[in-house]
C-alpha cells in the first residue's frame, strides 16, 4: 500500500521520539489517578496571606485584619475568610510554596493568566496551547456529546488569554460565556437554534437519504471524517444529556443554595455538573458581574492594588490601579468564593467525584506582604498558594512554608506553574516525554520545564 500521511512524515521528524519509544515506560500511566480535571482560576492574584497562608505574626501595620482560625485538621490554619472551606481541609492539600521563577514574565495579568492556562511561561519559541487543549489533544473527549475542554463561563478580564497554539481547532476551549446563574441562561451553540427537535430529526433523515457521498470514493479521508464529525455534532445537538449537563435549573434548590445562588456559586456548580457529565477538562473562570447591589464593582477580580479591606468598593481618590473591585472580605469576593469552594469540595466528595477528578484552585500570583500607601497590596510572584483536592491528592496536608510576612519561601521546596501543569499531566497519565509536533514539524514537549509536585501523589 502506498501511504504517506502527514502523520508518518511527522513520525520521521520526531527523531528524538523514535529513541524514546524504546524507553522503559515512565512513571506516567502508573500514576494516572485522574480522569478529569476541574480548575478554578480566580483571576487577578488572590492575596495568599488573607486566605490560605495566614501570617498572624506579621507586623501589625501589614498584617491581615482577619483572624487565623483552626480547620478540621489539627495544625492547619486558614484565615477566617475561609471559614467554610476550613471544614474541608481534610480533603485539601495547600501548596504554600508556589512561585514564578521568572517574575518579569508572569507579573502582568495577561501574561500571568496565559501562564496559568498554558502552564508554561509565555514568550517561548512556540506559543503553547492551554493545558486543557493539550489534554484534549492527548486524551480526547470522554463524553462524545460534549466538548473535551470547557470554560465556565470564561468572563474574567483575562479570558482571552486562552491559547490554542499549534493544535488543530477541535482542541480550542469551548467557553459557555454569559451568566449561568440567570434562570434564562442557556448554553450557546450546543442547543438546537430555532428549530424543534422533531423537525431537526426529519431534516437529518432527509439528509441521510440524500447523502450518498462521492461514488467510488468511499475511502476518501475527508469524506469519512465529515460523516463522523456530523454524527458527533448531531449527537451534541440532540442528546438530552447535553442539555442536562448545562441545566442548572434541574439541580435541587438545596444544592444550588449550598453553592450560593449568585454568579460564582452557580458557575462552580456548573463546573461540577460538567465533570459529572464526563467533560475531561473544565476551567471555572468567573467574576461577579456588575450589578446594582455592587456599586463601583465594574471589574470584580482579585487585583487589590487599592483599599483591599474596604467594606465595599475599592476606588480611591484620584483613581488607582485597583478600582472596580470590592474589598476582599465582601460577599462578591471571598464571601461567595469560600461558600462556593467549600460546597464544591463537599458536594464532589459526597458524590464520589473526587475519586477521579483533580480539583485545582489557582491564581496568577500572590500579593505583597506589605500594604502600600493606597491601603492595597500589589503583585507578588515570589510566593503564593494553590489548593488541590481529589484524584489521590492527600487531604489535610500543607506543602511548603513562607516567612513570617508571607513574602518569601522558607521551605527547601518551591513549585512553579510549570510544576502545576506537569502535575495535571501526570495525574491524567499523560506521558510528557512524548512530543506534540507543530504543523511545521517541530517537536514540542508540554510541561518540559516542570516536574510533578510529589506531595500531590
Amino acid at each position, binding site marked *: *500500500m*502506498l*501511504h*504517506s500521511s*502527514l502523520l*508518518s*512524515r511527522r*513520525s*520521521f*521528524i520526531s*527523531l*528524538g521520539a523514535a*529513541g*524514546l519509544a*524504546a*524507553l522503559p515506560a515512565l512513571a506516567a500511566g502508573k500514576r494516572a489517578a485522574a480522569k478529569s480535571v476541574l480548575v478554578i482560576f480566580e483571576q487577578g492574584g488572590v492575596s495568599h496571606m488573607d486566605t490560605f497562608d495566614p501570617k498572624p505574626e506579621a507586623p501589625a501595620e501589614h498584617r491581615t485584619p482577619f483572624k487565623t482560625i483552626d480547620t478540621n485538621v489539627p495544625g492547619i490554619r486558614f484565615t477566617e475568610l475561609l471559614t467554610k472551606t476550613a471544614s474541608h481541609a481534610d480533603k485539601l492539600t495547600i501548596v504554600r510554596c508556589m512561585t514564578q521563577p521568572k517574575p518579569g514574565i508572569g507579573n502582568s495579568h495577561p501574561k500571568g493568566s496565559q501562564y496559568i492556562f498554558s502552564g508554561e511561561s509565555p514568550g517561548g519559541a512556540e506559543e503553547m496551547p492551554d493545558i486543557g487543549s493539550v489534554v484534549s489533544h492527548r486524551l480526547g473527549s470522554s463524553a462524545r456529546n460534549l*466538548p473535551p475542554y470547557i470554560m465556565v463561563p470564561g468572563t474574567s478580564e483575562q479570558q482571552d488569554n486562552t491559547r490554542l497554539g499549534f493544535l*488543530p*481547532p*477541535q482542541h480550542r476551549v469551548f467557553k459557555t460565556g454569559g451568566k449561568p446563574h440567570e434562570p434564562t441562561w442557556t448554553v450557546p*451553540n*450546543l442547543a*438546537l*437554534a*430555532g*428549530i424543534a427537535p422533531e*423537525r431537526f430529526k426529519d*431534516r437529518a433523515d*432527509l*439528509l441521510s*437519504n*440524500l*447523502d*450518498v*457521498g*462521492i*461514488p*467510488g*470514493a468511499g*475511502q*476518501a*479521508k*475527508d*469524506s469519512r*471524517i*465529515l460523516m463522523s*464529525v*456530523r454524527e*458527533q*455534532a*448531531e449527537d*451534541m*445537538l440532540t442528546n438530552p444529556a447535553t442539555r442536562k449537563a448545562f441545566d442548572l435549573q434541574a439541580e435541587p434548590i438545596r444544592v444550588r443554595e449550598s453553592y450560593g445562588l449568585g454568579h460564582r456559586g452557580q458557575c462552580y456548580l456548573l463546573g461540577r455538573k460538567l465533570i459529572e457529565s464526563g467533560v475531561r477538562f473544565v476551567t471555572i473562570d468567573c467574576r461577579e458581574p456588575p450589578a446594582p447591589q455592587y456599586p463601583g464593582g465594574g471589574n470584580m477580580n482579585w487585583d487589590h492594588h487599592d483599599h483591599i479591606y474596604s467594606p465595599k468598593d475599592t476606588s480611591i481618590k484620584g483613581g488607582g490601579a485597583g478600582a472596580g473591585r470590592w474589598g476582599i472580605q465582601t460577599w462578591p469576593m471571598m464571601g461567595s468564593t469560600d461558600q462556593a469552594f467549600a460546597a464544591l469540595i463537599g458536594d464532589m466528595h459526597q458524590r464520589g467525584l473526587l475519586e477521579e477528578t483533580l480539583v485545582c484552585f489557582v491564581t496568577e500570583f500572590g500579593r505583597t506582604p506589605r500594604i502600600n500607601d493606597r491601603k492595597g497590596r500589589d503583585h507578588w510572584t515570589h510566593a503564593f498558594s494553590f489548593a488541590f483536592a481529589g484524584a489521590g491528592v492527600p487531604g489535610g496536608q500543607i506543602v511548603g512554608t513562607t516567612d513570617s510576612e508571607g513574602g518569601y519561601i522558607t521551605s527547601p521546596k518551591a513549585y512553579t506553574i510549570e510544576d502545576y501543569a506537569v502535575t495535571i499531566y501526570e495525574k491524567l497519565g499523560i506521558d510528557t*516525554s512524548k*512530543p506534540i509536533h507543530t*504543523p*511545521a*514539524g517541530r*517537536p514540542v514537549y508540554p510541561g*518540559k520545564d516542570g516536574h510533578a509536585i510529589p506531595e500531590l501523589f
Partner: protein
Amino acid sequence: MRLFFSLLICFTATGMVAADAPVKIEVHPAKLLLGSKRATGQIVVTGHESGVGFRDLTAEATYAVGEPLVEVQEGRVNPLKDGETHISVSAGGQTVKIPVTITGQSKPDLVRFRTETLAVLTKQGCNSGSCHGSPDGKGGFGLSLFGYDPVADAESIVRGGLNRRVDLFNATDSLLLKKPMMRVDHVGGKRLNKNDPGYAILHDWISQGTKTDDGNLPTCVKLVVYPGPARVLTTPHLTQQLSITAEFADGSSRDVTTLATYDVSHKEILSVSDRGRVTGLKRGQGAVSVRYLNHLESVHFTIIEPVPGFRWNDPPEANMADKHIHTKLKQLQIQPSGQCDDATFIRRVFLDLTGLLPSFEKTNAFLTDTATDKRAKIIDELLESEEFARYWALRTADLMRVNVKTLPEGRAELLGRWLIEGYRKNTPFDQVAKEILTATGDGLAVPPANYFLAIPSAEDLTETTAQLFMGSRVNCAKCHNHPFENWTQEDYYRISAVFARVKKTGKIVSISADGETRHPATGKTLTPFGPATSDPKADRRLAFADWLTKPGNPYFARVEVNRIWARLFGRGIVHPVDDFRSSNPPAIPELLDALAADFERTGYDRKHIIRLVCNSQTYQRSAATNNFNEADDVLFSHYPVRRLSAEQLLDGIGQVTGTLHTPAELTVAIATAEKQAAAKPNDKRAQTTLQRLKDRSEYATQRLTPEQSVFLKAFGQPKRESPCACERIDEPTVDQALQLLNGPIVANRLAKAAEAYGKLTDEELIRQLWLTALARLPNAAESAKVLPLLKKSASRPDTIKDLVWAVINTREFLLQH
C-alpha cells in the same frame, strides 16, 4: 542537496553469466585508502540485472584478499598492516578486483572529539531534542542539539557534573558510559551496548585523555552517500547496503558508515539498520536520510512488488504531466482512474480556478455543449476571469500577512489589489518576486513595499522569505543547525544579512548605507546569502533577488509550480508545499523538474502552468478509485477528494441560497453605484458602497482581506499571521459540523432560499437546486425522494428550507471531488 555521482568512479566487470545472474557487477568504491589504524571501508556490490534494475549483492558476495593486510566481513574492511594489496569481489560468477592501500598502522590514531565523539552522541540519541539536546538538557546534563556547538559540549562533558562524567583513569567507570549502558539508573534507558562501534569510540576518547581541542583539524565539508540519489528495490531483492564517506576540508576522506545516523521517512515502507543496511518492507516510496555532524543527505527509495492481476492499461496522455505520472504509476503498478464526467469537471475547475460554484445556467450550457474541446475552452475562459485573479491572489496574500491589523490605512487592500493585478495581467512570477523583494518607498504608494512593513522583525523577514520563495522552513536554524536539513545557523543569518540594511520608518521602506549581521555564536560578520557581489554599497536585495529568480535556481521555479500543483490537487508533489528538503523528497521528482523547467522556459508564466495542469488527464480523473489505486494518496492516480475551503464553502452557501450577487448582478450593481457616487462626489457612503462592491467584499473568495467571522474561522480561514501554508486548517471538525447543521450562517440564508426557489415548480426547483449546488441534474432516485416531499408538504417554504439545508450538508456539496 544533490548527491555527487561524478565523484564515485566504479569498477565494473562483464563476463559469462548464468541465465538469472547479473549482466555485470559494480563495486564501490573503486579503490580503498585506509590511512590510519581505525580507518574502515564499506564496499557495496551492485548487480545489474538483465532487463531493468539493480540488485544489492554486498551480503552475498565473496571477498578474497590478496596479501592479507586487511580483513573483510560482508563488505566492511578493516586494516591490519601497512602495504598495498587488493580485494577480489566475486558475485554472480563475476569478479572485480579493487586495489587497497594501507598506511599509518604503526602510528597512534587518537579519537577526534568533533568528528567522532560528537557523532556517536548523535547516533546514540544522547543529544536529541527530547534528551540532553533539549535547551535545558536533561537530568542536569545538557548538550547542544546534534552537536552543533562543540565548545559547549566539550565543557559540559569534561568539566560539567563535577567532573564525574568522564573518568580518565578508569574509562569504563565514566558516567558517559555507565549511564547509557544502564549500569547506573538512566532515565533515558539503555542507549549503548558494548559491541556498538560507538562504545569503543567513547571509551577510547576518554582513556586517551578526553581531548577536545581538535578545533583546528579539518572540518567535514561534504557527505557522500552511495548509492544515490535514488534507488529502486524490486522484490525479492529488497535490501541495500549504503556506504557513507565524509570528505574533509584538507581533501582527505573517511568511511563513516557506522558513525552516521540513519532515519527513514516512511517506517511502513522502509527500515534501516544502524550500519546502513536498508530493507524495503512494502510497495511504495520513501527516503533514507543520513546524518553526520551537521551534514544530511538522503537517498530516495522506491520499493516494487508485483501486484497480482495488474496489467498496465496504457491510459492516454494529454501532456507531459501525465507522462511523468504514468511512468511512476506503471513502475509501482498502480492503475489510474478514468476520466470524470462533465458535471464533475465543471464544478471542479470552477472551484479551483475561481473559488466559486458555476452558475446553473453556465453548468447547463456546458453539459449540453457537444464541442470536443469544451473543457480546454472553459479552462481558458476561467483563466481570463476576474474571479480567477482574485481567488488566486487571495491564497497568495494569505502568506504575506495581508490583513488590516498589520497593514492599516488601506495598505492591506493596496497590496491585495497589487497581487490581484499580478494574476490579472499574468505578470511573470520572477518579476512579481523581484518587485516584492526589492521594494522601497512609501507603503501607500508602492504596494509591494508593504511586504517588508507587514513583517515585524528581521528574523521573520528571513523565515518568511525562505518559506515563501525557497519553500524552506529555516526557522529551526535561528537557534541551532536545522535538525533535518542542511540549513545551518550561518545560512540563516546570511539570509538575514540580505535584509540587514532594510530600514523601516513608519510606513516607508528605505535602504541604509550600513548594517551588518553577525553569527550569534561566533560573532563573525556574515556575507549575504547568494553570490558575492562586487559593489559593497549596492542594495543587497538586488543580488539576492537576481540569484533567486535566475533560471536554474534550485528553489524558485520548483516551489512555485509545486504551490500551483497543490492548489489544484490539495497536495503538493513536495508536501507540505513549504517544506522542501532532501529528507522530504518529491513524490515524482521528474514531474516537479519538468514543470519547473517549463515554468522557466515560458518566462515564469503562471497561467501557462495552471492551464497545462488543468488540461492534463491527471487533473481530469475521477475521484472513484479502482482495486489498483485505492491505497494511493500521494501519486495522483485518482482525483483527491477534500473539504472545500472556508471561503469556497461560505460563498457556495451564498450561491445556493441566492444570497450573493451573481457576477452578472454585481456588474449591474457596480454600474448603479458608480452613477450614484458620481452624482454625489462628496457622499462618503456612496463612495464606500462603490469601493466595497468593486473589492467584492461580500464574497469570501474574492475580497481583499479575510473577514475572520466565526464561520470562516471554524473552517480554518487563516488570520494571515504566518507565511506557512499550514496556517490554513483543512481538516473537518465537529465545530464545523455544528456550524453547518445548526449555525446562523446557514439558518439565516434559508429564508431567502425558500423565497427564491419557492417561485419555481417542483421539478424546476430541484433541477435548479441540484445544478447550482452540485453542478448536475438530480437523478431518478433523488427526484423520487424529493418530489413527493414537496407535493405533500404542509408548508412549502419550510420544506424548501429543509431541502436546501440537506443539500448543503451532503458530502457531495461539502467536498471538492
